[in-house]
Structures are given as C-alpha cells and as structure tokens.
C-alpha cells in the first residue's frame, strides 16, 4: 500500500472510530479526577514518610549507638551496618522524590518516557535492595534494640544464636528468591499478574531496561 492510500485508510478508520465513539468526555468525573490526582502523590507521601522514619532512627538510635559502642568491635560493626542501610533507604527515597518532581507530562514524549522508566527501574531496585536484606538484617536490628533498651548484649550472651539466626536469614533470602522465580514463572503460564514476584525475580527490572534501550534506540536511529 502506498503512503497516500494509507492516509486515506487512516481517515476512514478515524471516521469509523468517531461514529462508534459513544464516549462522553466527561472531564469532571469525580472518580477519575480523584484517581489521577492520587497517582504520584501517594508515592511521594510514602517516600516522605520513609525518609522521616529512617532519619529519626538514624539520628535517635543508630548513630548514637555505634558512637557510644565504637570501642566494642561487634557492636560498632552492627551499628554501621544498620547505619549504611538507613542511609541507603533515605538516599533512594530522596532520589525517587526528585525523579517524581521532575515529571511533567507536557514535556516532549521521549524525555518524559525516559524519566518514567528511570523512576520505575529505581523503584524496582529499591524494592530488591531494601526488602530482601531484612532476612538477615532483622537480627542485627534486634541485637541493637535489645542492647539499646535493655543494656543486654545478645551477641556476647549467645553468639551461637546470633550466627544461627543470621545463617537462617541468608537461607530465607535465597528461598524467597527461588519462590519468587517460581511464582513469576507460574504467573507467565497462567496470565495472572504477580508484580511482587516479578520484581523479586528481576523480571520487572529486565523489562524496564528493555524499555530504556527502546527509548535510546528511538533517539539514535
């Protein structure tokens, strides 16, 4: 088909679409406006709460904890591990908020689509990096908490308990990854969406990377 002919066909398709278009562009539909309004706002609010909580944890507990116990190696290490986690959480949340604030849909399509994919891949990495470590990390937090509030050093009292729990945590982490891959594979077979499993199995990240490559290709070609 030649392109002029194609444009005529397009007009025909457009004409049919308009004939069938029973859609009433009711711009004031409250439900739709409410839904749209809450899309990025909710995400920004969630990230802001996360920043506030972790900043408080860092300033009130974790920072003073390892400074106070800097002479005791294992407490210093546990404190620094939790400190690093808190900084990472705050950093990725700030980054997500900055990316969200930059999104303005009346900007050119390629730019906005790139920003949206960047935000999506950051969110997925955030989920992977910050959720999974809790399997071994909870015992670190538990030891810090018990020492902070009760003055009892669980590591000294029962190092076996500490290392066993830490080991179980790492095993749990691996089992979670394995289950996520299974669930994601089953979701592919059945067609039922499993976004959490997709995120954990790395499939969502793969798709975001593919989309980023698609945008780059479009810009270069």
């Amino acid at each position, binding site marked *: 088909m030649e392109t002029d002919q194609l444009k005529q066909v*397009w007009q025909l*398709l457009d004409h049919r*679409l308009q004939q069938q278009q029973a859609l009433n562009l009711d711009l004031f539909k409250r439900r739709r406006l409410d839904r749209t309004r809450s899309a*990025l706002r909710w995400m920004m609010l969630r990230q802001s709460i996360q920043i506030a909580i972790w900043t408080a944890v860092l300033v009130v507990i974790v920072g003073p904890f390892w400074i106070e116990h800097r002479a005791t190696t294992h407490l210093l290490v546990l404190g620094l591990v939790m400190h690093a986690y808190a900084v990472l959480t705050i950093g990725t949340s700030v980054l997500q908020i900055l990316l969200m604030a930059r999104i303005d849909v009346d900007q050119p399509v*390629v730019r906005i689509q790139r920003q949206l994919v960047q935000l999506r891949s950051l969110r997925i990495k955030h989920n992977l990096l910050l959720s999974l470590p809790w399997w071994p990390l909870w015992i670190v937090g538990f030891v810090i908490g018990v020492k902070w509030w009760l003055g009892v050093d669980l590591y000294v009292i029962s190092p076996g308990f500490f290392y066993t729990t830490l080991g179980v945590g790492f095993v749990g982490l691996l089992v979670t990854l394995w289950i996520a891959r299974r669930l994601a594979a089953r979701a592919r077979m059945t067609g039922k969406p499993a976004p959490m499993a997709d995120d954990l199995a790395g499939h969502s990240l793969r798709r975001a990377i593919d989309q980023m490559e698609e945008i780059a290709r479009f810009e270069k070609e």
Partner: protein
Amino acid sequence: MAPSYPAMALDAEQQQRFAELIDQHRGIVFKVAGTYARGPDDRDDLAQEIAAQLWYGFPRYDGSRRFSTWMYRIALNVAISHLRSATQRQRHWLALDLSLHDVPDDHDADHEHNQQVRALHRFIQAQEPLNRALLLLYLEDRSTREMADILGITETNVATKISRLKQRIRDEI
C-alpha cells in the same frame, strides 16, 4: 505508573476556554486513545485518563504555543504510560484480535476498505510505543517540526524515521 499533575483549580473563564479548545481538538484524544488502547473499554478508560490529565495541565499551558502540540504531548505521554502499565499487568494475555474491535461487522460495507483498515490497524499495533506515536503523527499530517517538538527528537531524526516508516508500510501492508 501514570504521571499526574497536582490539582489546580480553573476559574470559570479558564474552564470555558478549556472546554472550547478541547471541543475543537477532541479528535486528538480519540485518535491517541484508539491507537494505544487494547479494546473499546480500555479505549474509553484511556480517553478519560488523557482528558483528566489535560484538565490538570491546562493552568500551565502556554497560550503562545500551539494547543495541538501541547495536547499531543500529554495525550501521547499518558497513552504510552498506560500501554506500558497495561502490558505489565496483562503481559501474558492471549493476543486479542485488535484489528477487529473497531471495525463494524457489516457485510454490505466495502470489503476492500475493511481489509485495508484491518491491515493498517494491525500495522499500528505491531509498532513499539514511540514508533506508534511517530506513525500516528505522520498519518495526521503533522509537520516534521511539530513532530520533533512533540516527541523531543531532532527534525533530521524525524525525517529519517518517516522515510524508513514509509518503506516498511510499502513492504508490510
């Protein structure tokens, strides 16, 4: 993840102006929604989403620029995001016969035209989201400059892509 504007209230005059402009250019909403939606229900949903985003964005619209360019940018951005999130949610759906949902099953209608419309629809649906935007703008006879402005790529790039697109149309349809 649908992008969104913060809520901004329009005064009565702005509302009137917005309604007039939308009425003049409502075809853009329908065409973009029709190009990116997966079926009639999805199309209505997407058209409403685009309309809502236009409403939120209108207080920021710079009147010295073409309204259609502004509208295309928002409509395409919303539609591509909608398509990507729908694809993620329903990635493994059995393929719908997308070529059928807009074409009336009218035995008296011109058979050849129906075939051509179906072929065009199939071709559109086979394009990646950004190429689909380019194809839509090309079919709408937008200038190279406006296409570049809407998409955010250079005019040379647009011209090159259009040339390749024409070749693919000749080869594939």
